[in-house]
């Protein structure tokens, strides 16, 4: 936070208070800068990539987030015991917990992020909006007030704003505690559900109402402020492709911004940041109407999931910038030094089943082959053998591609997704491909309701079912030979296969032939 004037404070050892892909990604920059990385580790994460990659590990007993990665006191005590100079919170978990940031500060540990005051000011969405309104940043019409406001008053306020409206958690983020209400009769249930979810997710049940902009775009600006009072933006990220208010595809530049609108919104983002004396990395989120009107949504006081698209088009390492600022140094550039180069897209790969209501999918990742090639970046939190559990976010990895133009970037992304092999859990790669191939997505005509309103066409499927059948047949024969009891196979422990079990001829050679494939008796035969 480098709050105390501009004194410089070298940081040598950093605790990353997070897990998964973001912990790994932050650690890479820190280690490249010569810092020592301390990782947190729950019981089941004992062999997780972020733990293996660290220089020191703090074990937190238990598995739920509440028992482990949210244990502020334990984490702080361990940080002190390990003699860390700073804590990087990543995103989620403690990243927007002002009390934690304050506790770090009080312990003489640098919190790599904004000041606790800025987190507080922006964490309360109601206060944030009022503050921005005062600062002259455009906001969406809405209502907020006492949490004990009776339903009939809320109903009247909702009518005044005009349906459809959004019920949102005051302490919210990430789509949690948010409900869309189309008609007055649904308001009561939505208020109850949003409050319950908000209480659970944030420990704060307060909600507020907001006008729902029809077919809006979600465009956010990356901001950076240093302790010397310099504030810049690193341009926008278009995050309109969302499912249940959760972003799944992001890109930069936004296909919908004109240079004039970009300048206007960038200026507003910087104005918003300055209004709260913002330091370190943050994101000012706007929604943009079809008419080009834009409204302040919220400020995320952390490094965002989708920060890599900004890194790809600005050729900057945002974690490195965060470190410079945390050490009390000033930003090494001004706004006029910055420009966007080319285009970047990010796709989020989730362990979920698009065929079955997107239910999260758990299990062991048996095969994991990320795509590789020029202009392709995969930020993964998993590897082959990782057990995807119910305890944490189901995001497996982020796939990011870059191109000179949006078209080039998009075709690289399509190729990269097609060459991503993840087996063992269900995931959304095919679903992402369907979006990337949608004609409206291709021309950049996207909005946050895209997935609700558009029909995704199945991708052209292979006609070569025999090839697939053959591969599965051989795998099955190999597997049935490698086990003693039928039906008790352990597909995931086959590394020793081939070296033993002389009785299974399918395991001996390296080659198999398909003699023929014909429809089974039961089907497909002319009667």
């Amino acid at each position: 936070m480098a709050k105390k004037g501009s004194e410089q404070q070298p940081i040598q050892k950093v605790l990353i208070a997070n897990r998964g892909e973001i912990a790994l990604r932050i650690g890479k920059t820190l280690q490249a800068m010569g810092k020592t990385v301390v990782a947190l580790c729950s019981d089941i994460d004992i062999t997780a990539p972020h733990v293996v990659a660290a220089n020191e590990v703090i074990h937190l007993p238990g598995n739920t987030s509440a028992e482990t990665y949210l244990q502020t006191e334990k984490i702080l005590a361990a940080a002190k015991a390990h003699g860390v100079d700073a804590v990087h919170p990543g995103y989620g978990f403690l990243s927007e917990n002002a009390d934690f940031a304050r506790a770090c500060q009080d312990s003489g540990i640098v919190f790599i992020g904004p000041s606790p005051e800025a987190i507080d000011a922006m964490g309360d969405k109601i206060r944030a909006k009022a503050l921005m309104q005062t600062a002259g940043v455009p906001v969406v019409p809405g209502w907020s007030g006492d949490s004990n406001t009776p339903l009939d008053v809320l109903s009247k306020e909702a009518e005044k704003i005009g349906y459809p409206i959004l019920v949102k958690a005051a302490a919210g983020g990430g789509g949690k505690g948010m409900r869309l209400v189309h008609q007055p009769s649904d308001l009561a249930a939505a208020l109850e559900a949003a409050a319950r979810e908000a209480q659970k997710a944030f420990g704060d049940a307060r909600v507020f109402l907001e006008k729902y902009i029809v077919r809006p775009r979600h465009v956010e600006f990356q901001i950076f402020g240093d302790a010397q009072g310099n504030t810049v933006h690193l341009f926008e990220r278009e995050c309109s492709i969302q499912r249940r208010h959760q972003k799944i595809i992001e890109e930069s530049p936004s296909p919908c911004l004109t240079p004039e609108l970009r300048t206007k919104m960038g200026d507003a983002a910087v104005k918003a940041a300055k209004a709260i004396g913002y330091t370190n990395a943050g994101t000012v989120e706007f929604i943009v109407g079809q008419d080009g009107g834009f409204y302040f949504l919220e400020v995320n006081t952390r490094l965002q999931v989708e920060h890599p698209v900004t890194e790809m088009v600005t050729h900057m390492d945002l974690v490195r910038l965060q470190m410079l600022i945390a050490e009390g140094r000033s930003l090494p550039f001004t706004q006029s030094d910055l420009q966007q180069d080319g285009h970047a897209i990010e796709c989020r790969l989730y362990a979920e089943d698009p065929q079955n209501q997107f239910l999260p999918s758990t299990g062991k990742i048996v095969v994991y082959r990320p795509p590789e090639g020029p202009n392709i970046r995969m930020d993964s939190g998993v590897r082959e053998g990782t057990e995807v559990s119910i305890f944490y976010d189901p995001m497996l990895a982020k796939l990011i591609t870059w191109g000179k133009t949006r078209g080039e970037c998009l075709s690289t992304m399509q190729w990269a997704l097609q060459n991503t092999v993840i087996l063992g859990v269900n995931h959304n790669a095919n679903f992402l491909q369907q979006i990337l191939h949608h004609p409206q997505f291709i021309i950049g005509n996207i909005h946050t309701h895209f997935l609700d309103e558009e029909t995704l066409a199945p991708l052209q499927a292979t006609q070569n079912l025999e090839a697939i059948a053959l591969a599965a047949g051989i795998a099955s024969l190999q597997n049935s030979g490698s086990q003693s009891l039928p039906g008790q196979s352990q597909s995931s422990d086959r590394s020793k296969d081939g070296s033993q079990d002389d009785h299974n001829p399918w395991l001996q050679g390296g080659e198999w032939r398909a003699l023929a494939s014909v429809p089974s008796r039961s089907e497909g035969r002319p009667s």
Partner: protein
Amino acid sequence: MSSAYKATSQASLHVSVNGAPEITVKLSNKPPFLPNGTAHYVALGGHEGLLIDADGKQERVFACLRDAQENRWDVWFQGATHSVVVTDPNAKKSKSARRDSAAKSASNSPDIKAPMPGTILQIKAAIGDNVSAGQTLLIMESMKMEMTLNAATAGVVKEIRCQNGQMVEMGAVLIQIQPDTTQPNT
């Protein structure tokens, strides 16, 4: 050792790809090709292989067992994952027996089961309650997502086998429903 075949083996398997009608695949672990032999496969170890067709065109392929009971495999081929069920008509347990046991376990039971592992958030029914089809009986959470579980059919709540805050496994019966037989059941 890769080319030292000790014995010739042949197998004939029934395979259904992505729910399509079964095809029979005949396999041999030894040359020669049949004149119309479609493909040959080179195992690359682990779960990876190469499929080479009669013209010499090759494709990478990955396979991973997803359900041992059903012998259901996920096969990655040409950029997509395919769900494949393999049955060996000569295996001891006959296909019809397997089908029967599968049918038994996945019966049209009106009981509320956990669609995935997770935590029970709220139970919205009590023993003895009359419930209607579609009525929300339970809210659970998994990986930070809430989901509601609804009655599939009208009936009476016979037993509640979970409590608030409890962690449950996938497929666990959470609420037992005695179906209402006076209403037409679909």
